[in-house]
């Protein structure tokens, strides 16, 4: 009935720097996430199960290996940049619902807007801190809840129990409400952080903790 199972979130982290891969892996583990790290955008796509077919413009979806709840990628990488990877993910029907977060050591407002416009959930300036990673939970929760809701909805339709599907419909709007509440302040605070490099003392928002434990 729309309950979230206690399984861990699985994050795919992409960075060409071995040192940064180690950092982000530890940060995510500390936040109780399962992590897979790869050193390039193409390896990330391969891991997701997206491989280029003969037609370079379309990406076939091969059997998806693992369920990924979030992709976090460095912007500056040789070959495929984080932005290129973001685009490919958002263009793919199978994976566009996976939230993507971009990291960069350079504070370039035009770059940040471009990424956010292309569908990135967040843009983190390096060095990424534990407080930043805590912000990711709601994004991952959103996708998981949605999937759970869809799954249950499917099951309900099969057994045709109208009263139970009502419960599912109630949960989704609640989540969307939370999403709306969060997105505005997050976007502006993120841009503020990026453009002015203001290090706010209270980075971790207690609100998120409430959401994750109560749902």
């Amino acid at each position, binding site marked *: 009935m729309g309950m979230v199972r206690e399984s861990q979130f699985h994050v795919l982290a992409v960075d060409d*720097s071995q040192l*940064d891969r*180690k950092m982000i892996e530890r940060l995510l583990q500390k936040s109780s996430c399962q992590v897979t790290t790869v050193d390039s955008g193409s390896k990330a796509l391969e891991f997701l199960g997206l491989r280029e077919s003969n037609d370079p413009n379309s990406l076939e979806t091969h059997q998806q290996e693992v369920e990924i709840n979030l992709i976090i990628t460095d912007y500056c990488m040789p070959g495929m940049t984080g932005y290129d990877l973001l685009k490919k993910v958002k263009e793919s029907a199978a994976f566009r619902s996976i939230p993507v977060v971009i990291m960069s050591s350079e504070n370039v407002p035009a770059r940040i807007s471009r990424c956010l416009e292309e569908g990135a959930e967040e843009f983190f300036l390096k060095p990424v801190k534990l407080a930043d990673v805590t912000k990711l939970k709601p994004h991952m929760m959103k996708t998981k809840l949605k999937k759970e809701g869809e799954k249950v909805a499917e099951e309900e339709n099969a057994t045709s129990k109208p009263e139970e599907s009502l419960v599912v419909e109630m949960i989704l709007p609640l989540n969307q409400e939370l999403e709306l509440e969060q997105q505005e302040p997050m976007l502006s605070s993120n841009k503020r952080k990026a453009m002015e490099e203001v290090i706010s003392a209270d980075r971790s928002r207690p609100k998120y903790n409430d959401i994750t434990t109560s749902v």
Partner: protein
Amino acid sequence: MQRQVALIKQSLFDQGYLDEQFIELEELQDDANPNFVEEVATLYFKDSARLISNIEQALERGSFDFNRLDNYMHQFKGSSTSIGASKVKTECTMFREYCRVGNAEGFLTIPYLRRVQMFEDFQATEERARNVEKEA
């Protein structure tokens, strides 16, 4: 012994070699990952040795491929930032500025002394090249 290490560490902070990012690193270390800081530091020294060597080689050749130098510096700055090596990060930023300026506006805006040094290096390289030709 521990007190000595603590004192050395404190002085690194006081002199600006390390910044608060290093403390973030330490906070990521725990019983399950007791050697995290050491592992990261090892990666950093490996990275920086490689990058410095690449940069030195590029400069020795008299090669002022600013894009390449800038690329090395970008990587070096990146790992220095991640580990909290504050002074190194600053030096990288300055060096990158010279690279950028060298690219966009020729040598005119690089400080005079630095330009003289570069010119002398070029001359020396030319000299060497000519000698090699003579030898051949």
